[in-house]
Structure formats: C-alpha cells, structure tokens
C-alpha cells in the first residue's frame, strides 16, 4: 500500500460533509441520552422507596428490570446499531470524585480530623490537621508527602506487591456499601435532613451508613474496628528514632518561628481479621462529584520544595519472613530464641538489638534506614505468626531453645487446606510434619 497519498486522503476526509441520516442518528442519540439521564434520576428515587418497604432482593430485581428497560429503549433506537450502551448507562450512576472529612477516635482523647479528596481511579489528596499533605496514586503504589511549612517533600514508592489487574475502586465501594452488605435499620435526621440508616456488621468491624434517600449516596459513615478477643494476638507496631544512631533530630523552623523536629518513623501492620487496635472513624461532610482539579492529585514536586525519595518494601514473605525475624533475633541474642513470639514486637527488646547491629561509625541516616528496614522485616515475621494465631493453629516452643538443633520444633502451624503442619526447627530449617510427630 502506498502511503504517499495519506495526506491527500486526510484532506479529503476533512472536506466530507456529514450525511443527513448521520445527523438523524445524532438527534436520536442525544435525545435518548438526555431522557436516560432523567430516567436515571427516577430509578435512584424509586430504588430507595422500594428499599424502605420491601425486601432488598425484591428491590434489586426492580432496579435490574428498570435498567434493562433503559437499555432496551436505547439499544433499539439506532438503526442497525448493536452498541454497548449498557456499559454507558451504568457509568452515568458512578461518581468520579468525592470529598469528605474523616475524624479518627483512636481510643484515647487524641481525636483528629483529616480532609480527604478522592478521584477515580485511585487518587487521594489528604490534608492532616497540622498541615502536612499526602497525595496518593494507588494506580502506581506511590505517594507524595508535603510539609508546606518546611517546604519539604517525600516520595515513597511501594514495591514488592503485585497489584491486581483491577484496581480497587474506593468510590464504588463506599457509595455502594449499604446496597451490597447493609441492612436498613431505620431513619434518622442528620444535619436537618432525613437519612436512611444502614448497618454492616462484620466480625471485627461495624459500619453504620447514613444515606441520603434522594441521591442514594452516603452522607455520613461510622466505622468501628474491634481488636481480636484473644489478647495474645497483638498488632505489630514499633517506632525508631534517628537519635539512636548518633544523628540529631532533623529540625526545621516554621513560618511562625517555631522549631519543628522530625526524629524518626514508625510502622504498624494491621488487617481486618482482628489484628487491629480499637478505633472509631467517622466520615462526614461528604460532597459527591465535587469539581476537583486534576492538579490536586499530581505527584509532581511543587516549586521550592526539597525532595527526598524512599522505597518501602511491602513484600509479604510469609513463612520466610518469620524465619528471617527469628534469624535476626537469635543473631542478636547469643543464639537464644525468644521466650514468646510476641517478644518480636516488644520495642524494649527489639530496639536495643537494632541499635547494636546497625549503629556504628557511619552515616547515622544510612544506619537508621538499615535498622528501619530490619525492623520492618521483624514486624512482618511477627504479623505472619499473628495471622496463624487468628486461624487457631499456632504453636510456639522456642522458650529456652538455642539456635542449632535441627530436631527441635520451634513453632508450627497448619496452613489452610492442608492435612499436616508446617514446622520451623531449631536450625531455622522448615519442613512438614504430621500432628502425631509434633510435641503436645
């Protein structure tokens, strides 16, 4: 094929007139689209009326029928065209942005409120009460933290976890939570307006959602996280200070002339299976489909800021992580295993080990980073053990045992869908064993 006449053909395409029957398609398509927008509104209202009076299942059937009617009306309108308007119609309902305030009640009197802005797909702009801003790009596992007073920026790239093919859509999740899992428990007046109240009760989480009957969107959400009933299950958490490695706390002078010190960082690993602290979060002051500028979610460095970049390894190493944590412990405690596995989360025991191993004559910041990475690995190993405890098959027998004996089981657990147990032995080797081969 000769490409020499590409420009000529492009010019001819440019001079083409739009045929009359195509203009009719436009009129018909536009008219039906507008009509569908109005019908969408009616469907949302109808859905809420039905929910209040009949079972959820019956209401769902009504919605499906209503949507199908919309699709059929539209699909049959275009001459010979089998277009994918179902997808288009469904997308009309979806909110693309939301702003809200989020108040945290962490079980003490230190409640605080952050202001969040979200944009589909996977962007979050969060402003903390003391000024710092964090912009998340969940599509790339990357975030930018900004300290406006100090003109300091930190980009953190999360590595080591494969993100799913489909990105978790927060807006979809939060806007449909009451429909998917909620039970309508009544109506309440909130900010002078009547709202339907839905309850979603899970084992370690209770979510109450107040929904505007007119828009079918949440106006307030309260989430209460409960810790596991077994007090022996702990949340891996630890902090580390650069001062432990001979570095001074980083100091900045803010615009008010006050000296602000940044001395260290902490890590908490939790999940919704009960490996979490008690916490209440209230989301309020929702604005759905707010007009947000995309620049709010840009990870480009603002002018005048100094940039620091870090990588945060979120690899879940599973049982290898636990072996790594035990290897670190035995290395730093003259070969002895911890008396209890939860010792791996005891800062009074682990921090001195980290300082002993990493504090030297080098750059304090580099030593701190190495120790911080090691602390993270220890906490990941501890998390693996807590998960085994949640599943109820965890056993630990390392108290008083010294590294080296390949015949002594240190800890064992039963993986899901397995008949036997996985065992870590005294030489930190790992293998499988039947229950009768393990200590009682």
């Amino acid at each position, binding site marked *: 094929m000769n490409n020499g006449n590409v420009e000529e053909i492009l010019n001819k395409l440019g001079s083409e007139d739009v045929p009359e029957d195509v203009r009719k398609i*436009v009129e018909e398509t536009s008219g039906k689209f507008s009509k569908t927008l109005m019908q969408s509104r009616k469907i949302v209202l109808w859905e809420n009326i039905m929910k209040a009076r009949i079972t959820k299942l019956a209401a769902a059937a009504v919605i499906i029928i209503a949507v199908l009617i919309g699709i059929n009306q539209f699909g049959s309108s275009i001459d010979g065209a089998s277009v994918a308007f179902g997808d288009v119609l469904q997308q009309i309902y979806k909110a693309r942005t939301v702003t809200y305030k989020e108040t945290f009640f962490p079980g003490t009197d230190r409640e605080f409120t952050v202001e969040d802005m979200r944009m589909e797909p996977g962007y979050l702009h969060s402003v903390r009460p003391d000024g710092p801003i964090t912009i998340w790009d969940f599509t790339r596992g990357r975030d930018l933290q900004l300290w406006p007073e100090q003109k300091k920026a930190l980009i953190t790239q999360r590595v080591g976890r494969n993100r799913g093919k489909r990105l978790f859509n927060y807006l979809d999740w939060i806007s449909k939570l009451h429909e998917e899992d909620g039970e309508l428990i009544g109506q309440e007046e909130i900010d002078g307006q009547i709202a339907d109240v839905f309850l979603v009760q899970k084992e370690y989480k209770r979510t109450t959602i107040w929904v505007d009957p007119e828009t079918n969107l949440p106006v307030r959400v309260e989430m209460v996280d409960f810790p596991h009933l077994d007090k022996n299950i702990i949340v891996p958490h630890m902090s580390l200070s650069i001062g432990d490695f001979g570095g001074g706390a980083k100091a900045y002078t803010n615009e008010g002339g006050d000296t602000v010190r940044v001395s260290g960082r902490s890590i908490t690993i939790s999940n919704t299976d009960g490996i979490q602290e008690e916490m209440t979060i209230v989301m309020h002051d929702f604005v759905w489909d707010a007009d947000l500028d995309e620049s709010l979610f840009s990870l480009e460095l603002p002018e005048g800021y100094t940039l620091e970049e870090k990588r945060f390894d979120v690899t879940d190493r599973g049982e290898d992580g636990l072996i790594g944590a035990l290897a670190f412990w035995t290395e730093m405690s003259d070969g002895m295993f911890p008396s209890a596995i939860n010792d791996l989360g005891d800062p009074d025991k682990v921090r001195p080990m980290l300082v002993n191993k990493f504090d030297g004559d080098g750059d304090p910041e580099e030593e701190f980073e190495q120790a911080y990475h090691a602390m993270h690995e220890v906490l990941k190993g501890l998390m693996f053990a807590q998960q085994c405890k949640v599943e109820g098959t965890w056993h630990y027998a390392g108290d008083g045992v010294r590294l080296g004996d390949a015949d002594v089981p240190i800890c064992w657990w039963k993986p899901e869908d397995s008949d036997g147990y996985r065992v870590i032995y005294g030489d930190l080797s790992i293998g499988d064993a039947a229950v009768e081969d393990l200590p009682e």
Partner: protein
Amino acid sequence: MKYSKRVEIFEQVRAKYAGFLTSVLWKLTGDKELFAEAMQYALLGMWRNVEKLNGKKAGAYIYRIALTANSKAWRNRIGKDGQISKAQIGVESSSSDKIEGSELAALIRRTIAKLPAKQGRAIVMRYLQQQSYQSIAEKLSCSEAGARSNVSKALATLKGKLANLTERE
C-alpha cells in the same frame, strides 16, 4: 452540584458542541454503527466532565472527549489483538466510498484512534478540521512552530503505524 443543575448544564454544552462532535466523529469513524457508539461515549464523557466543559478550558476538553470516545469505539470494534476483518471496517457502507482509496481511508481512521492523544488532536485539527497552524498552536498551547512540529510528528507516526499495519495484513 445538584443533579438537576448538572443536567441543565449538560444540555447547554451538548447543544453548544453537537455540531463539532458530529463532524469530527463522523470523519473519524466513517461508519454509522461506529459513529453511534463513539457519539454515546462522547455524550458520557461530556456528562462526566460537564463542569469542565462549562469552564475556561472547555475547548481543550472537548477535543480530549471526542478523541477518547473515538478510541473507545474503535477499541471495542477492533478487540484486544488489534485485528479487524476488512468486512468490519465499514468500507462498504462508508461515505469514504466517494473518495479514492477507500480501504486506505478506513485504515487511516482506525490508525488515528491509536495515536498518542496530542498527535491525534494535531491530525484532527489540521486535516479533519482544516485549521490554520496559528489556530492549532492556540489550542495546543504552543508556538506556531510547535504546532507544525506536532502535526509533522503525528503524520510521521501515522504513516509508520500504517506501514506496520499494511505489512501485517
């Protein structure tokens, strides 16, 4: 913004840009079925960005919406493997029958849908809308020389992609 207000603004911007979308999408598709689908995606894009289309940068957004809608429609038609049978291109029913090289015209349309966004806009503005370089420069927020460069690069990319496509087929 209230739903009713959004609908009101949508109707205003739809009326304002209907002529533009019709002309551009028809020239980019040349096939009634494909055109109808692209038009639906464009209307959805307008609905979702209605606030922006009511603002100062509306001109830039409408191009983005039109070209995204065109790409989506073509992607649905072509499929993931990028293959399409000649019967599906719409050569028979297209008004491009009136021009020489109707098969090449269909391939060109299909290939424009795959161009990078800025290059796609440059091609549409220069050839399908027959705009001056000065006008293109204003819309692309660049100099006149930059506009020429964008059009030239877009044309080169288009020719390159066409060459690959015709070799495969």
